[in-house]
């Protein structure tokens, strides 16, 4: 692993089998993640954006190694290295038992604040739970830490006796954040932590995450389906389309100077106040998103790409360096054609 990295994903592929027939034979597969390599620098916020269903959550769940639990037949290949005090570890090589020892340093914040908290437990019990598995703190010490965490996320310690249904979405997401921090993790996978929230509350939660990132020295993978959410908090952004990363670069560059035709289309759909932007430059995404089950060969975007060529069907284009630290997976575009 490179010195500046805390997490390295190498050629991650996740395939969900589709079974059918009398004996549950595999009849097809969903290539949810189709060869993703991604590095996360220590202390950075790495944005991961893409439309619904492109495999963002699957990457997050593969990284924290929980896919096998809900889908025992899932086929996962590749490597997920993390740096710990005890050295570098490939999480995908660990079985569930060995994985358990490392769960404390890599935690996830889930997409849906309503279903991510067990409604039968009090907030205190929810936040305390990870400490039961990863620390040997006494009951009092745990409760003290629960109060402390609640304050850190902007709630009151007295609220630990309440149940999740007494909180709003934003407050619930704060509870989820407190839970994810209770074991002092180094890496946080934030899976669309704000997309279920009102716009007015989104900013509060994002700001909270940023404050906590500094205080707890966290490296965050921030998943979103909307570039504008991650643009100003991410040092780097990866854009995904149907299981592949199609563009990777510094947040500002991706937002203001997207290179891949898909990112361009994604951005032109966002109303950006930009005087330079002309109406005729807007690319509108046409056609339906193909499902990962019948993913087009070669460049998966070719069915909707305005500049697709016959050769695009041949092979998945690799990420190429297009500008400083800025990669895109399309051989037919350059950084110079600025089209925002």
């Amino acid at each position, binding site marked *: 692993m490179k010195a500046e990295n805390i997490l390295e994903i190498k050629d991650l592929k996740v395939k969900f089998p589709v079974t059918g027939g009398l004996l549950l034979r595999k009849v097809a597969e969903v290539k949810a993640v189709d060869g993703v390599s991604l590095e996360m620098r220590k202390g950075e916020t790495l944005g991961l954006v893409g439309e619904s269903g492109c495999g963002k959550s699957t990457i997050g769940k593969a990284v924290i190694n*929980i896919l096998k639990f*809900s889908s025992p037949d899932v086929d996962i290949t590749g490597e997920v290295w993390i740096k710990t005090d005890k050295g570098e570890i490939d999480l995908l090589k660990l079985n569930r038992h060995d994985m358990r020892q490392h769960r404390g340093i890599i935690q996830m914040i*889930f997409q849906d604040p*309503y279903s991510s908290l067990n409604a039968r437990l009090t907030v205190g019990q929810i936040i305390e*739970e990870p400490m039961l598995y990863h620390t040997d703190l006494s009951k009092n010490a745990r409760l003290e830490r629960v109060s402390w965490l609640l304050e850190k996320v902007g709630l009151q310690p007295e609220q630990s006796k*309440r149940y999740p249904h007494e909180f709003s979405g934003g407050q619930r997401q704060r509870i989820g954040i407190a839970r994810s921090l209770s074991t002092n993790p180094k890496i946080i996978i934030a899976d669309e932590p704000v997309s279920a929230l009102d716009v007015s509350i989104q900013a509060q939660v994002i700001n909270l995450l940023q404050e906590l990132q500094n205080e707890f020295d966290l490296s965050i993978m921030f998943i979103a389906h909307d570039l504008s959410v991650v643009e100003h908090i991410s040092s780097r952004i990866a854009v995904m389309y149907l299981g592949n990363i199609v563009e990777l670069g510094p947040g500002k560059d991706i937002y203001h100077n997207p290179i891949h035709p898909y990112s361009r289309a994604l951005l032109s759909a966002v109303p950006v106040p930009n005087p330079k932007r002309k109406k005729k430059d807007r690319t509108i995404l046409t056609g339906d998103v193909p499902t990962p089950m019948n993913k087009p060969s070669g460049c998966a975007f070719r069915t909707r790409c305005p500049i697709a060529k016959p050769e695009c069907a041949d092979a998945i284009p690799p990420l190429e360096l297009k500008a400083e630290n800025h990669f895109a997976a399309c051989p037919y575009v350059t950084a110079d054609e600025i089209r925002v």
Partner: protein
Amino acid sequence: MSEKTDNEKSTKVSASIFKKRWRKFKTLKRGYYSFIAIVVLFTLSFILPLFIGRDALIVNYNGNYHFPIFKYYSAESFGQNLQGEANYRMLKQQFKEEEKGNWVLMPVYPFGPNENLLSEMDGNPPHPPSAQHWAGTDDRGRDVFARLAYGFNIGLSFSIIVTFFAYFIGVSIGATLGFFGGRVDFFGLRLIEVWSTLPFLYVIIIISSIIQPNFILLVFILMMFGWIGISYYIRGEFYREKARDYVSAAVSMGAKNKTIIFKHVLPNSLTPVISYAPFAIVANIFSLVSLDFLGFGLPPPTPSWGQLMQQGLSNIENWWLIATPLMALFLTLLSITFIGEAIREAFDPKVYSRLR
């Protein structure tokens, strides 16, 4: 919902979902009162000999106290000129006439369920209802009201026990299938399908024609067939709950399967079990009544509603033999159904689906 109104709300007393549902249940009067009535009656039915029965509660004989409901006394021990056990109703009468200061305290309704009253009554059984015998007697001269009361205890206990064990099996099997999914689920389901094609009534008839069924055997048979429905429910619940993020969160924290099942998934999967239970109890009461009616139920002389109805049907002119057990069955099933309805409403997933 804005954060502000939520903070205001949080000054209210906090309540778990169960407490909220219980509060809601209490507001549903019909179900709540039925619940109280059934619970009180069922509890009382375990100390029924104190209210309804042939044995005296207390006998004061020659200055000594005796408690015949706990102990057998022969007729001679009270100076009664009879064979076998003392007849306390006659004893009461006798003591009164003797005026020696001896006395007998009888239960409010001094007739037992299995007691043959022919020697004390005129005419041939069945006797019609009277002030003494509220629901008359059956064709063997036994008091119908006492039989109904004891039959209530037996029927309800029976069906609660069957429901409990059937649920235990159904929940365990359904939870296993739903939690582990995949092939376990696939083959488990096929086995359940095969099992559920066994004709339950025939099995009982066959077994009863070989051996006389007793309480435990009937519980066992009904339980072996009663778990199937609930196992489907629980399987579905486990399947759904397992895919929810709070379970993923538990896995990502490093919780073990045991913790995940018992701390997370199971408590969130019990709603259908609880809201379905009253209806299962109703169904099991009905099963016992039907089996007794058909003559494949509990062995005589167990007081049984079904057996009374069967008598009623063969003596159709003795209307009380059919009307009173039907009435008792109707009222019991109706109240339990009211309870079930109220539970279902209190547990309405539509209100709480967002919270679960």
